[in-house]
């Protein structure tokens, strides 16, 4: 069942990607001022949305984990955090690529760039806590959940403060007027990237479940081998 769903979803992601490539590169017109490079926009924005959705999922899953102590919430949290970091990284890579020809530089301490960078770093720290924990598995999960909550509360504060900190550096357009074909391309690519996100999320959670099960079997075997007696 789950396998069938995975295959179905994979097929959907593939078709959506093909459709998105068509929409982005062939269907949508080339933007007048920026030229070809503007087409990176479709993936840039979709990835940004996905990463923020992922971090919200980390937040919700962390709260649920602390309340219910069920492993599935922890699986959701870890999978979302990793994907959020990856999609944020995509944003941070595509952004400068787009910025170089338009702004003349790869990087500016511009509010949205700074916001994405700080948020990205907070969730890198989240993954570090998980990777380098010393205590029991349960403790690691609790620590991660606490961080997942605290970091997410910080997200709006980061947003607010970098916006005021470098308001004069603001280069992202606040409102975008898009040609109708561009709007279509935008939504098609959002569906494509979004479904890719969901597909990866599902697979990552399955992987986590498998590794948890493996650990359990290992521990049970260790237990049977007998660890008592001097």
């Amino acid at each position: 069942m789950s396998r069938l769903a995975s295959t179905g979803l994979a097929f959907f992601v593939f078709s959506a990607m093909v459709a998105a490539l068509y929409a982005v590169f062939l269907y949508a017109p080339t933007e007048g001022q920026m030229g070809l490079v503007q087409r990176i926009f479709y993936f840039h924005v979709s990835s940004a949305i996905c990463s923020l959705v992922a971090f919200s999922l980390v937040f919700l899953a962390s709260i649920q984990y602390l309340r219910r102590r069920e492993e599935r919430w922890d699986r959701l949290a870890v999978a979302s955090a990793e994907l959020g970091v990856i999609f944020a990284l995509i944003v941070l890579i595509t952004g400068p690529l787009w910025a170089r020809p338009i702004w003349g530089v790869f990087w500016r301490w511009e509010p949205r760039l700074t916001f994405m960078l700080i948020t990205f770093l907070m969730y890198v720290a989240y993954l570090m806590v998980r990777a380098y924990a010393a205590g029991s598995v349960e403790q690691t999960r609790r620590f991660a959940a606490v961080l997942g909550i605290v970091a997410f509360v910080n997200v709006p504060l980061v947003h607010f403060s970098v916006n005021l900190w470098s308001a004069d550096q603001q280069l992202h357009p606040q409102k975008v007027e898009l040609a109708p074909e561009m709007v279509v391309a935008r939504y098609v690519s959002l569906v494509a990237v979004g479904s890719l996100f969901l597909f990866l999320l599902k697979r990552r959670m399955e992987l986590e479940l498998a590794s948890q099960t493996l650990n359990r079997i290992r521990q049970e075997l260790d237990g049977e081998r007998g660890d008592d007696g001097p």
Partner: protein
Amino acid sequence: MIKGVVAILWKDLRVEWRSRERLGPMVVFVFLIILVFNFSFELGGSALHEIGPGVLWSAFVFAGLFGLNHTFATELDNNCLDALMLAPVSHSSLYLAKMLGNLLFLLVVELLSLPFFCLFFNLSPGLYLVPLVAVLTLGASCLASVGTLFAAMSSNSRLREFLLPLLVLPMIYPALIWAVKATAIVFEHSRPSTTGAFWPGSLTEPVSFLLVYSIVFTTLALMLFDQVLED
């Protein structure tokens, strides 16, 4: 609740008085970092007023991390944390006591190094000593609120001291932005040419942000500290 906080805080101060493991190194550290900045940027001259507040806060944050790492060091030595958890004292009291302790240490370090900082960098807080102290206190409480929570987590990690900066720094950036801004405003208004009110109006916004930040994260930490300590 208050009794427990006072007892633990008093104990920590006494331990610090005996061992002097935190304050001394922190103060020296602040000086060393200020000198690092001095040599890295060849300070002196007109750039000073521009980057002075940034240098000051960078030094405080790094020295602060140094001190924060020590928050639970004494408790781990002989499993003393168990004794605190056994006692009829709530975990929130433990957080508050540790947080206030960190705040106090940070403040002492800030106040001790401030005169020298002003001396080295030819700055004078002048009339604005009160706003400056308010900014320093609030900035320190932002660092202490987040730092104390994370110190409890990092003391239980394989990276130990190294994990804390990784956790605290990205979290603290918003507060850092405002603390630097507020400090810059204070020094701006303290130049001999400017005269003005007791409290520069432009200071209200950054100061209230720092206040909100520290309240938000102290509250959140109080709610979550149980989860960090539980075995």
